[in-house]
């Protein structure tokens, strides 16, 4: 079955997620869909699976117009999906989960024997080691992933969407999956494969479509004619407008130092020095381990080796509270809605949360006037647009929400600020404002660790750039703020690391 996406657009209150997007998934082909975070891949998948409705444009199956009002419609039309988030019922058996859509049985009764037989046939192809009678809650994450794939296969989908199916499984399991994909392809299934792993995409796909900022950068180009380098540049791209940030602030003493740090997330041998009044960029593709490193620094992840020094003293940071109170380190989460803000609370209380302790009176009361006065300068400095400080944060635009989540750390006056993807899904104008603000924070003396997948942003802001890949630092250079030089340095660091890894992988395969 051929699935065509024709001129589809989708706008959310704060951002245009898809802008006149067209592409076509043909039967018997593996079609890779690539793009960085916020490029619009998820929105596109949600439209194709009936979770969202497009604002404009249409979907066609074998040339016929189709409309999906719910996931059931998409399933009925033969579009199956393995989503990124787990969609299993934990206390049900593996077999029952696989056949949840259409359990075999008669007159309303379930036939468990038939369930287990059919589930076993499906799992046979993927991982015969999984017991179809086992409760899903007892499986490993990788096994759950396999179960989800088996579940999609059970539907005999003619179009199969796989959203990062290999993100949490081993190479061995991935190999098995690729064999299944090859078989399905031979049977004429149209397979859409979303992945951030370049190797995989180049190995198993026939065509590739690249999205960036909701627009199609390359539509269904044959993978044979696509180089790794070109793919990376298409994904990363560059911004038109760049904030005017004068670099070269006077660098001070070392504020934060990591020596041979290893973490429970899988980092190893991480060395890093962050100076006062410096912006240190941490660049890497999605999944490189940057956010996880920041989280480990503030104690929201376990450090398993090496040493951290704050200032000139060794530090052991056990939780984010200690990071803030004792070491004056703040972390601006990339997930502002999930972790950065309490959406149903006012601007005032969202910003003041970090300083309640400081402004509380002896009776632990927080006088509203004091709170308001403490917050007002931050709101003015960031030019947060609102009717009133008591307005709830969920009524603000994405850009203003991001400003609020930054403002709370400015109010806390931390010495070290870890800022994670500050401008994802934010319009260009606010983006520039935020860039100028981050530069100002550093100029005022704070040490800033900036995590970003946006290369233009990185080259505009950072004084030095560390390149991360696969949970290790693979390159470091001083940023001269010239785009071509910076992007060249970053890409060659990533390519070199990829090549090394591939080399190692091949050697291991031979041995």
């Amino acid at each position: 079955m051929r699935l065509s996406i024709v001129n589809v657009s989708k706008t959310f209150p704060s951002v245009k997620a898809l802008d006149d997007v067209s592409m076509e998934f043909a039967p018997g082909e593996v079609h890779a869909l690539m793009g960085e975070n916020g490029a619009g891949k998820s929105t596109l998948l949600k439209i194709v699976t009936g979770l969202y409705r497009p604002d404009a444009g249409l979907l066609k199956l074998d040339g016929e117009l189709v409309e999906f009002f719910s996931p059931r419609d998409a399933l009925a039309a033969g579009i199956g999906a393995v989503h990124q988030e787990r969609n299993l019922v934990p206390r049900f058996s593996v077999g029952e989960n696989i056949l949840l859509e259409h359990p075999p049985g008669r007159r309303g009764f379930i036939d468990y024997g038939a369930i287990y037989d059919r589930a076993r046939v499906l799992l046979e192809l993927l991982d015969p080691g999984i017991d179809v009678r086992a409760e899903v809650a007892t499986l490993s994450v990788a096994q759950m992933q396999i179960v989800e794939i088996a579940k999609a296969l059970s539907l005999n989908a003619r179009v199969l969407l796989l959203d990062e199916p290999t993100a949490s499984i081993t190479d061995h399991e991935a190999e098995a999956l690729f064999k299944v994909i090859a078989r399905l392809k031979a049977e004429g299934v149209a397979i859409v494969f979303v992945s951030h792993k370049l190797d995989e995409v180049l190995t198993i796909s026939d065509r590739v479509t690249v999205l960036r900022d909701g627009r199609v950068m390359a539509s269904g180009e044959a993978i044979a004619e696509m180089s790794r380098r070109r793919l990376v540049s298409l994904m990363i791209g560059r911004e038109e407008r760049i904030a005017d940030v004068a670099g070269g602030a006077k660098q001070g003493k070392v504020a934060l130092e990591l020596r041979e740090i290893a973490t429970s997330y899988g980092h190893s041998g991480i060395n890093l020095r962050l100076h006062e009044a410096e912006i240190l960029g941490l660049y890497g593709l999605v999944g490189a381990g940057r956010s996880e490193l920041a989280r480990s620094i503030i104690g929201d992840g376990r450090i398993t080796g090496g040493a951290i020094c704050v200032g000139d003293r060794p530090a052991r940071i056990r939780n984010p509270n200690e990071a803030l109170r004792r070491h004056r380190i703040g972390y601006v989460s990339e997930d502002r809605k999930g972790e950065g803000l309490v959406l149903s609370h006012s601007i005032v209380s969202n910003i003041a949360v970090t300083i309640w302790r400081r402004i509380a009176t002896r009776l632990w009361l927080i006088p509203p006037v004091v709170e308001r006065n403490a917050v007002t300068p931050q709101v003015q400095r960031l030019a947060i647009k609102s009717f009133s400080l008591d307005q709830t944060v969920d009524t603000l635009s994405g850009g203003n929400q991001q400003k609020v989540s930054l403002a709370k750390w400015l109010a806390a006056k931390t010495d070290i600020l870890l800022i994670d993807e500050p401008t994802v899904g934010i319009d260009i104008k606010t983006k520039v404002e935020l860039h100028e603000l981050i530069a100002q924070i550093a100029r005022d003396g704070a040490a800033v660790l900036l995590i970003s997948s946006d290369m233009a942003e990185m080259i505009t802001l950072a004084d030095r750039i560390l390149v991360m890949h696969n949970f290790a630092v693979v390159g470091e250079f001083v940023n001269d703020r010239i785009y071509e030089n910076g992007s060249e340095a970053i890409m060659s660091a990533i390519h070199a690391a990829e090549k090394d890894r591939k080399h190692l992988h091949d050697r291991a395969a031979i041995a």
Partner: protein
Amino acid sequence: MIGFRKFASQEWAGLAAIFVLGSALAAFLSPSFLTEYNIYVMLRSASVELLVAFSQMIVLAIGQMNLAVGALGGLVAVLFGAMLQLLGLPLPLAILIALLIGIVGGFINGLLTTRTGINGFIITLATGSAFTGINLGLTESRPFHGIPVEFVALGDSRWSFVPALLWPPLIVAPLLAIFLYRTKSGRKLLAVGGNMRAAELSGISANAMIIVAHAISGGLAGLAAVLAVSQLGAAQPEIGSTWLLISFAGPIIGGTALAGGYVSILGAMLAVLVIALIENMLVLMKVDPYWVRFALGGLVLVTVGVNRWRAHQMGRN
């Protein structure tokens, strides 16, 4: 040995052990415990409570709570009494209508929850108050005594130590088990409780399952009310007013997941029996009844704590 390990890994195994050890202790402490009559009294009080626990359990299965179980029970009880005393309806017809009223009450809860999108906790808090209001408004807190003699006698009758009132919950329990574990509707209901998004993506209508769960809950509350009338010999407006704690304590001590998606019918039954046993022991030992409630509260806290510890241990392995 393998048989024993399988037994010990069940959530209800601990409760079964507590029940056996507790009974032995009670028999040791009080000679009147192991009499036919005492056991009959204990089981009779457990009969209504079993149905009350099931009524809450089915709503917990979809990850919601039903605060209106007792209020709906009270309303069904007085309407049942009115049908018998004021309208003179034949007993079987009155029972049938009483159960239907329960189902309709639950259906209303489910419908309001799904239509408004408001949490069932709040909806049933409100409808519970409304049901009680209708109850007291109609009866002005006066009970209906015109209950047929044979129905009251049924509430007192027994075979050896087994009260006649125990049969309805004993019949309901396997029916519930078959529904939840063997039928498609039952599996869908549990799937919605276990992972609503996954269920919906699999083409299951979560709203329909939420309404079904509330309707069954209402029907079971109605059945509990009918039993309570038979047990007390009168349709008293206060029926149901003390059901709240037991309705949660039974399923939760029995291992039903508060988050939904998993129930243990046997666990809930054993939990109700353990609670009845503890109440019985305290009464035999002439402990002030107020302290019985204290002990019950403590028991809920301890078992929930133990279950959480167990889950944590299992997560480690």
